[in-house]
C-alpha cells in the first residue's frame, strides 16, 4: 500500500515530458498495483487502470483522468561554445526560468543551469524587461565537442527540483501540475476498496495535456464512458491577484461549474461532499477550463463531464505550491462520488428538462 504524500513527492521529482510520460506512468502503475483489476497502456502512452463494479450489467462506466506530463523544454539548437537554445513544450513563463537548475535528457542525464546576460552588462532598457525565451540558454559547463557528443537537438529538458515540505502540510516543487491529480487517482482507487460501488471505473493517466489535452481526447474515444471527471490544478490565492480568480489553499478541492461541466455531475459532487463532510470550493468557468475536461466533453456524441481541481500557487513554475490535504480530500470526494452512482443517475444525464 502506498503512502499518498510520498507518492506525490516521488511523482513530482520524476520527469515526464509531453510524449515521454513513461516514468510517472510507471510510478502510478506501481502505486495502484493490487488495487486495479487490469492495467493497460495504449499505443500513445495513456495508462488505463480498470476497477470493475459489483452487480449486474449494465453498470455505469466512469472515466476519471489526470495528466501525467509536465511542462518541459526541448533542445532547439546547439550554439558555438556548447550553449543550448531551447523551445518550449508547454507554457513556461520565461521570467521564472532564469537561474533554474535543469536536467538535459541527452545520452545520459546532464545537469545544467539556465543563464542569460548579467545585469551589469545589460542596457538600462534590457534590465527593465524580462528576458524572452529566445535569449535564454542552458550552460552544461562542458566543452562544445562533449556537448555535441552527448546532446542532440530534440532532447527534452526538465526542471531539476527536490520537492520541499513547507509548514502547515504544504508542498512546493515542480510538476505538482498535475502529479497532484495523478496522486488523487491513486487515493481514489485505494478509497474505493473500502466502499461498495456498482460503477466500472477507468482511471486514466493521460498524455500530452500541456500541449493541447491530446491523450484525454483519444482515451475518451477509446472508452466512450457514460460520464467523466477530469482532475487537474487551479490557481490558489496569491498576493496581488483578485480573490475572485483564485481559491484557498487548504480550503478543499475545487468543483467547477459552467458550460463545459454537466450540471447534474456538479450537483452530485457537491451533494456527496456535503453528506460526507468533505470541504469543497466552487469555481465558475464561463469559457474553456484548459483541462482534459474540454476535449472529453465533445468526443463522439458527447460525454457528461465534470472537473475537480486542486488549488495551487505559482502555476507553471518550479515552486508550484499546494496543501496536501486538498489532494487527499479530492481523492476521497472522487471515491464517494463514484460509489453514489447507479444506472438511473446515468440515464438522467441525457435529460436536461426533467429534474
Amino acid at each position, binding site marked *: 500500500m502506498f503512502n499518498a504524500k510520498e507518492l506525490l513527492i516521488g511523482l513530482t521529482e520524476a520527469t515526464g*515530458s509531453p*510524449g*515521454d510520460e513513461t516514468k510517472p506512468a510507471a510510478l502510478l502503475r506501481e502505486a495502484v498495483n493490487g488495487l486495479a483489476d487490469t492495467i493497460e497502456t495504449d*499505443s500513445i502512452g495513456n495508462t488505463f487502470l480498470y476497477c470493475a463494479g459489483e452487480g449486474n450489467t449494465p453498470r455505469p462506466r466512469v472515466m476519471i483522468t489526470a495528466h501525467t506530463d509536465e511542462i518541459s523544454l*526541448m533542445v*532547439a539548437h546547439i550554439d558555438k561554445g556548447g550553449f543550448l537554445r531551447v523551445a*518550449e513544450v508547454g507554457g513556461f513563463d520565461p521570467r521564472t526560468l532564469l537561474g533554474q537548475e535543469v536536467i538535459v535528457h541527452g545520452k545520459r542525464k546532464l545537469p545544467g543551469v539556465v543563464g542569460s546576460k548579467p545585469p551589469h552588462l545589460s542596457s538600462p532598457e534590457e534590465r527593465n524587461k524580462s528576458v524572452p525565451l529566445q535569449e535564454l540558454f542552458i550552460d552544461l559547463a562542458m566543452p562544445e565537442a562533449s556537448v555535441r557528443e552527448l546532446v*542532440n*537537438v530534440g532532447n*527534452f529538458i526538465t526542471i531539476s527540483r527536490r520537492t520541499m515540505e513547507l509548514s502547515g502540510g504544504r508542498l512546493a516543487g515542480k510538476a505538482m501540475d498535475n502529479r497532484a491529480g495523478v496522486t488523487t487517482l491513486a487515493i481514489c482507487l485505494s478509497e474505493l476498496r473500502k466502499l461498495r460501488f456498482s460503477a466500472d471505473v477507468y482511471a486514466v493517466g493521460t498524455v500530452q495535456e500541456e500541449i493541447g489535452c491530446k491523450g484525454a481526447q483519444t482515451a475518451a474515444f477509446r472508452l466512450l464512458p457514460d460520464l467523466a471527471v477530469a482532475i487537474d490544478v487551479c490557481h490558489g490565492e496569491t498576493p496581488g491577484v483578485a480573490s475572485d480568480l483564485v481559491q484557498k489553499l487548504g480550503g478543499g478541492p475545487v468543483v467547477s461549474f459552467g458550460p463545459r461541466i454537466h450540471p447534474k455531475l456538479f450537483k452530485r459532487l457537491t451533494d456527496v461532499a456535503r453528506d460526507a463532510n468533505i470541504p469543497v470550493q466552487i469555481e465558475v468557468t464561463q469559457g474553456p477550463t484548459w483541462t482534459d475536461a474540454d476535449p472529453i466533453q465533445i468526443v463522439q456524441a458527447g460525454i457528461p463531464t465534470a472537473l475537480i481541481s486542486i488549488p495551487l500557487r505559482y502555476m507553471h513554475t518550479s515552486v508550484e505550491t499546494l496543501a496536501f490535504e486538498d489532494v487527499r480530500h479530492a481523492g476521497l470526494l472522487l471515491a464517494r462520488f463514484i460509489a453514489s452512482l447507479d444506472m438511473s443517475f446515468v440515464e438522467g444525464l441525457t435529460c436536461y428538462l426533467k429534474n
Partner: protein
Amino acid sequence: MKELIRQLTIPSGPSGYEAPVKEVIHTLVQPHVDEVYDDALGNLYAVKQGASGPAAKTILLAAHMDEPALSVIDIDDQGFLRVAPLGPLRASTLVGARVVFARTGRRGIVGAEHGVAQKDLEFSHLFVDIGAASLDDAREHVRIGDAATFAYGFDEVGADLIVGHALDNRVGCAVLVEALKRTHSGYTIVAVFSAQQEVGSRGARVAGQRIHPDAALVLDVSPVGDTPKSERLALTLGGGPGIKALDATMVVAPKVRDIIVDAARLADVPYQIEVSPRTASDAGALFLGREGIPTGGIVVPARYVGTPSQMVHLRDVEQTVTLLTAYLGQLQ
C-alpha cells in the same frame, strides 16, 4: 527526381481546390499500387498491400497537396480584385507578386494602396490587377471565390538546388510517389495525398479517422536556420532529411522518433532532428485520430518557406526517399 518534382509543381493547388494536383498524382501512382480512391474532402488515397498478407498492420503516410493562395472576395467597378488569404500568407510579402487563377489560367499582379508603410500592410490594402478594363471584363475571367496561386513555376540554382513556389509540399508528394514505386513493406501502406493542410490539416484529420492505421508518418518540408541572421533553427540545407521531434502541432514521442533514427543509421543516411515551433504539419491532426495514432514525420529542409521561392537541395530529397524506403522496409 528533379523531373518528378517539376511535374508536380506545375498544377495549381489552393487549399480546397487541389483537384489538378490530385489528377497528376493519380496518374503517377496508379501503376505502383493496388488501389486508388478519393474522398469527400479531396484527399487522394493510394494503397499498397503489405507483404504480410491480410493480417498486415497499416501505416498511413501523409503528404499535403495544397499550397497557400489568394481568394477573390470582391471585384470593384474598375475590375480590380480584392482578396483574402487561403492559408498562412503575410500581406507584406505579396506586393508585386505574380499570380495565376487556377480555374481559368488568368494571370495577375498583386498591387498595394499608396501611403501604407510596408510593415503595416494588411490584406485590405492589397488588390490584384488582372488587366481588366471594367467590372464586366474582369467577370469574364474571374469569379468571387476563385483562388490564385503564385506563378513562378520551377527553377534551378546551380547543380543541386531547386526553387519553386509550391515545393512546400510537392516535394513531400514527390518523395511519397517515389517511395511507393520503390518500397516493399511488411505493412500495408496507405499513402494519403492530403487536402487543406494550410488551412488547419482538415484533410489529414478525416484521413486519420477513416484509415485508423497502426502508425502514421508525415512527409513535408521544414524551414532551415542556415541563412544570414535567420531564425535559430537547427536544420541546414543539404544536411540530410529532418526527423520530426517538435513542430507547432506535435511533439513526437521519443520511441516513435527513435525507430526512424535507427532506420537512418542502418541505411547510412545522414539525418538531422527537426525542432520547429512555428511550423505546422499534418502530424498533430493525424495523432488525434480515434483512439490515438502514434505519429512521426520526415521533412525535407527548405529555405524561404512562406515565400514564393522555396529552395530545397536535391540530395536531401533523394536521401529522404532512401530513408523512407528503408524505414518502410524494416516494418514487419
